[in-house]
């Protein structure tokens, strides 16, 4: 009976995700749909999200025979509804389609963390609630502060000091200094610094409208990146570097500069490759994981075994062996999704991430104010690059760098920074107008 439900659910879940993805692809072109059609599409997506969550939870409930699954699912649904209502009632949600994407990613997160480790799924739900509250508070303050871009050096200082602190006193995990413990809660400052970093670079560019803007942002970005390299957190360093390169490109519109920056990044990469033996071993593990399957290639080999064995349709939830992959619940959760829900769902998920990145960039494009235009572009770039680094690492498209998959990977800090970024993007228009001290209802 259980296997019947699991097998059958493979097909139903696949159909929800395909319907969702098709609607997503329609929506990235921001078609001038009339309001009725637009809201019908959005509603269909919302229905698919609820069906997806409930169907997956039902499979986990039957497979694990854990009655608490029903309870957590109810709380998850309430949580998602609160987010949805809150965002949709924001005076000007920048992109309604993006809200659905984020909710679906959260559902994937809930389902797979629950399937892999039930206790962690409860912690992740708490992380989500905390992230929501913090994000709302951050938005509230941003609304109150006029000309936020003037505080650019404060942002730079916060970022560099907290990264430096972690670089020297942080706890070592997987060979890198990433986090420290505060009252039993593990905090990863580099995640939060992503936001202050974007505020700093955007602030530099809009405050100094000349060469100084570029100079300061370059120096500041370089310091962030160097401290991250010192902590051996190369994946995050790459994310910061990419955000800097693309933001200066968007701001200064200079293709030669873009080429020089990318060239510089490649030279830096080659120097790092020769200087750090652990990059070289990662490189070998990427080129031929089976040759070092006992050691450095074990994780990526297990990931590819999971994906390959799952095949197009997947093994069905709780029918695979994703627990064989080390750190599957955070960095390699995509392999678990592909193994159990199948490669078609996994490809749909990549497409959903792609659409989300483009929708974020659309939000940036539609910003009336250049400061928030740059901040939101930065959020889009960080979101996109992190997705590519994470999924690319899991499927052996590129060497594994150890960054998290936005909204899906287990971990409070990364969820928090994504929540803040997402809320800023959704309310970017609102923030600017409010910060100028004008109330829209004055008109």
């Amino acid at each position: 009976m259980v296997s019947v439900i699991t097998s059958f659910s493979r097909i139903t879940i696949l159909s929800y995700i395909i319907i969702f993805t098709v609607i997503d692809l329609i929506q990235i072109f921001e078609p001038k749909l009339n309001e009725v059609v637009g809201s019908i599409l959005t509603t269909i997506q919302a229905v698919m999200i609820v069906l997806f969550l409930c169907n997956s939870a039902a499979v986990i409930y039957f497979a694990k025979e854990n009655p608490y699954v029903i309870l957590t699912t109810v709380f998850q649904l309430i949580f998602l509804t609160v987010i949805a209502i809150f965002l949709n009632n924001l005076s000007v949600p920048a992109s309604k389609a993006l809200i659905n994407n984020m909710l679906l990613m959260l559902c994937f997160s809930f389902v797979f963390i629950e399937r892999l480790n039930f206790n962690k799924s409860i912690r992740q739900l708490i992380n989500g609630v905390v992230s929501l509250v913090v994000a709302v508070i951050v938005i509230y303050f941003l609304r109150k502060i006029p000309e936020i871009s003037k505080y650019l050096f404060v942002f730079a200082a916060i970022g560099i000091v907290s990264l430096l602190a972690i670089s020297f006193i942080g706890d070592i995990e997987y060979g890198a200094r990433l986090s420290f413990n505060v009252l039993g809660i593990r905090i990863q400052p580099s995640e939060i610094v992503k936001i202050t970093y974007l505020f700093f670079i955007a602030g530099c560019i809009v405050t100094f409208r000349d060469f100084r803007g570029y100079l300061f942002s370059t120096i500041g970005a370089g310091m962030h990146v160097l401290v991250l390299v010192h902590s051996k957190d190369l994946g995050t360093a790459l994310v910061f570097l990419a955000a800097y390169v693309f933001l200066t490109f968007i701001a200064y519109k200079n293709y030669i500069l873009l080429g020089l920056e990318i060239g510089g990044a490649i030279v830096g990469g080659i120097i790092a490759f020769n200087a750090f033996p652990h990059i070289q071993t990662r490189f070998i593990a990427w080129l031929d994981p089976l040759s070092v399957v006992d050691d450095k290639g074990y994780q990526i080999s297990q990931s590819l075994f999971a994906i390959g064995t799952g095949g197009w349709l997947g093994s069905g939830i709780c029918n695979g062996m994703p627990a064989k992959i080390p750190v599957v619940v955070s960095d390699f959760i995509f392999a678990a999704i592909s193994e159990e829900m199948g490669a078609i769902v996994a490809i749909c998920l990549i497409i959903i991430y792609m659409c989300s990145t483009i929708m974020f960039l659309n939000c940036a494009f539609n910003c009336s104010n250049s400061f928030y235009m740059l901040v939101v572009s930065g959020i889009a770039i960080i979101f996109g690059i992190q997705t590519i680094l994470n999924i690319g690492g899991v499927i052996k498209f590129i060497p594994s760098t150890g960054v998290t998959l936005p909204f899906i990977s287990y971990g409070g800090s990364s969820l928090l920074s994504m929540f803040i970024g997402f809320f800023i993007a959704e309310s970017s228009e609102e923030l600017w107008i409010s910060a100028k001290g004008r109330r829209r209802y004055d008109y």
Partner: protein
Amino acid sequence: MLKVQKNYGYQRKAEEDMTTNHNKKSIRKEIYVTAFMFLIFFAGMIAYFVRFLVVDADSFIYNSYNSRFSVFADDVERGSIYTADGRAIAKTTKNEEGNEVRVYPDERLFSHAVGYVDHGMAGLEANYSFDLLKSHITLSDQINNSLTGQKSMGDSLYTTLDYETQKAAYDGLGMFDGAVIAIDPDTGKIISMVSKPDYNPNTIDKYWDDINDTEKGDSALLNRATNGSYPPGSTFKIVTTLAYLRDGNSPSDFFYKCSGKFDVDDYTIHCSGNKSHGQEDLLTAFSNSCNSAYASMGVEIDREKFQSTAEDLLFNDTLPTLISGTKASKFAINSDTKESIVAQTAIGQGRTTVSPLHMCMLVSAIANNGQLMEPYIADRIISDDGKVVSETEPVSYGSIITASEANLLNQYMEAVVTDGTAEKVDFGDLKVYGKTGTAEYTENKKITHSWFVGYAKDENGKKLAVAVIMEGAGYGSKYAAPLAASVFKAYFEK
């Protein structure tokens, strides 16, 4: 908190970005460029992902570090293995208690070719385990099966093996230890593969300790056809002949007067039965299998040329075949090698070892004008509803022997059968080309392995190459060659 009035569109223009003098579309076109770059990255990633699943995944996941195979058996019943003529030689059935058991209807007949599943895995069962546990029946049938709680039937494997030929080889080997392997030279299809001592795959679990008894030391689990290491005996004269020709000699250069023995250093090489063959040219030396003539030829060949010829003929290398885990043959001669060892090497004694598969591949290249087809045994995978899931295409390794060399060896090997050592063997109406061998393997020169390598051709041009080794049987012409004859008859008379 953030609840504010909606619908503000009209003042949006008024609030238009004051910080630049340009209009939005033109100043922000770089956002679209950025979006486009991300689009390319994502598309590349999806393409790579699809490529991995379509091209690499199946071979990648077949690895002992992948512990997921056990899960498959819960939903799929392991598929059957068939001979080329459609006889099931391994299938899954239910026993009285309703448990699935793997059954091998022909018991020992296909033991090494097919392998076993009960105690670890071996043979085709191991190499194609993944395919046999995958089901390619239609999706609706699969869904139907999983709804009704039935297992889907796994795909079947059709081998290249021919039942009658296999049986002739198996029966012909009789009580002897050894191996028989037969290959279709035009395609590389393995028609039969027998190794003895053997085991019954149906009861391997029960008798595992007995089969692996090291004191008995007969290593019944070893597939001698692909992994045996035998002294080649006189069958190696094929290689020596090629080395002689490749050292810049012409076939007509060779003359030798055989007195029945050849002295080198303080060692004497005798012709078989101490027979003196008298005046010989290359053809008669080959067909008489004259040890003295070949020993004298061997010491004259440039040693580097000898070594490189052997290596061109796939010695000291993994054999190009789709069968996994074959044993490389060994050949080593250099400037330090004693002359007596070189002389012995030239007649297939010395330190050279070969597998029957390798000898059969050499002969099939000779039969195919010098071109070697890579041997394979798994012909195609068929789903339970009859669709072809995958099919092995014959692959050419290229020419390891030139057409003129092959032509010459054809004449010589024909002479072996018409006038030479295999003259008395009854091959029926078939045109047979071969070489016998009698290989010493202990100090006692009375006990010898019996070899025959060669191929037969019928009037339609259909060919079959075989290599036969019977351990400790005696003369190649007396034991191995008649066995080859019965294998040929079984193959061509169907």
